């Protein structure tokens, strides 16, 4: 039953995620955190951070890892296949049968209308993360870190993976402060 749920969850994400990897993130969150409760909010955040830091397509990395957590090796294969196979078959069939459907105005219209919806989904998830961060780090630190990340990633064009790696390093190297270490005593 778990495997079936896993398969269905990732099929749904894959067939609704217009706009590649990033579009799948909010949908994935809905399935694995809200709906099936396979992961907590924190775990999802960690997985997303790591998946973002490593190279390669983000959706399949997340699918593979979550699948393995939920259903072992079979779960891993299951989630990855559900993520990629349907759309590959679709692409092969459409390209070989129809040549170029992507010039059809109604296809372009479909894709165009979905983009803002994905934008809203991402925005809602952004807000959730900010709220969570405010809860653990306080408003000031959250604001500072967010602003600094925005500057570094957007203005200086530094790859987000590097920023995340540096933050992880900082968290590891900081000495545990007995007065206010996160999670101590």
């Amino acid at each position, binding site marked *: 039953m778990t495997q079936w749920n896993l398969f269905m969850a990732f099929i749904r994400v894959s067939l609704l995620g217009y706009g590649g990897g990033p579009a799948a*993130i909010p949908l994935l969150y809905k399935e694995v955190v809200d709906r099936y409760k396979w992961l907590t909010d924190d775990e999802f*955040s960690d997985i997303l951070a790591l998946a973002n830091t490593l190279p390669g397509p*983000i*959706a399949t990395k997340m699918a593979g890892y979550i699948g393995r957590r939920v259903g072992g090796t079979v779960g891993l294969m299951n989630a990855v296949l559900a993520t*990629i196979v349907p759309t590959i078959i679709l692409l092969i069939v459409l*390209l070989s049968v129809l040549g170029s459907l992507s010039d059809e105005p109604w296809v372009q219209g479909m894709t165009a209308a979905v983009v803002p919806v994905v934008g809203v989904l991402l925005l809602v998830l952004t807000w959730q993360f900010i709220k969570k961060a405010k809860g653990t780090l306080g408003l000031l630190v959250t604001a500072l870190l967010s602003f600094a990340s925005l500057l570094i990633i957007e203005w200086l064009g530094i790859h987000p993976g590097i920023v995340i790696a540096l933050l992880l390093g900082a968290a590891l190297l900081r000495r545990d402060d007995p007065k206010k270490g996160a999670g101590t005593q």
Partner: protein
Amino acid sequence: MAFFIPGILGYGGGPASIPLVEKEVVDRYEWLTVNEFSEMLAMANALPGPIATKMAGYIGYMEGGILGSIVAVFATVAPSLILMIALMSLLYKYKDSPKVKRMTAYIRPTIAVLLGVMAYSFFSTSYEGAGLYQTVGIAVVSFVLLEKLRVPPALVIVGALVYGALFLS
């Protein structure tokens, strides 16, 4: 091999690996012409799901049938996935240590910013494509449906697809 390299080097997911894939399959191995490549890319963009694996699957299939497809997809997905699983299990082992807890806390604002930037890029794409009114209209309607009325995202997306096919063509 052609897909192994973009799979390793393609930082930032699908879109980042597109130029790398193009370099390999068009310039280096000449499996596709530039025109064929851009046609495939347009189609891959119009379909749901991750871009990089779709292209790998298709090109692999054209060059080496089902087996080629499997090889290309495997090369795209496997290296980064194995790395991911190894690192995650390491993190998981020390899940309760204060350092790992702090890591989770530290990166959260950055992840929020990343998601926000992604959201922004989707909106600006939409603004350029569908115009201001359509973008704002669809965004507001979908926000109300998703957040206030708790409609599942799947239904909202299907609704948007239908709306787009009828009114934005």
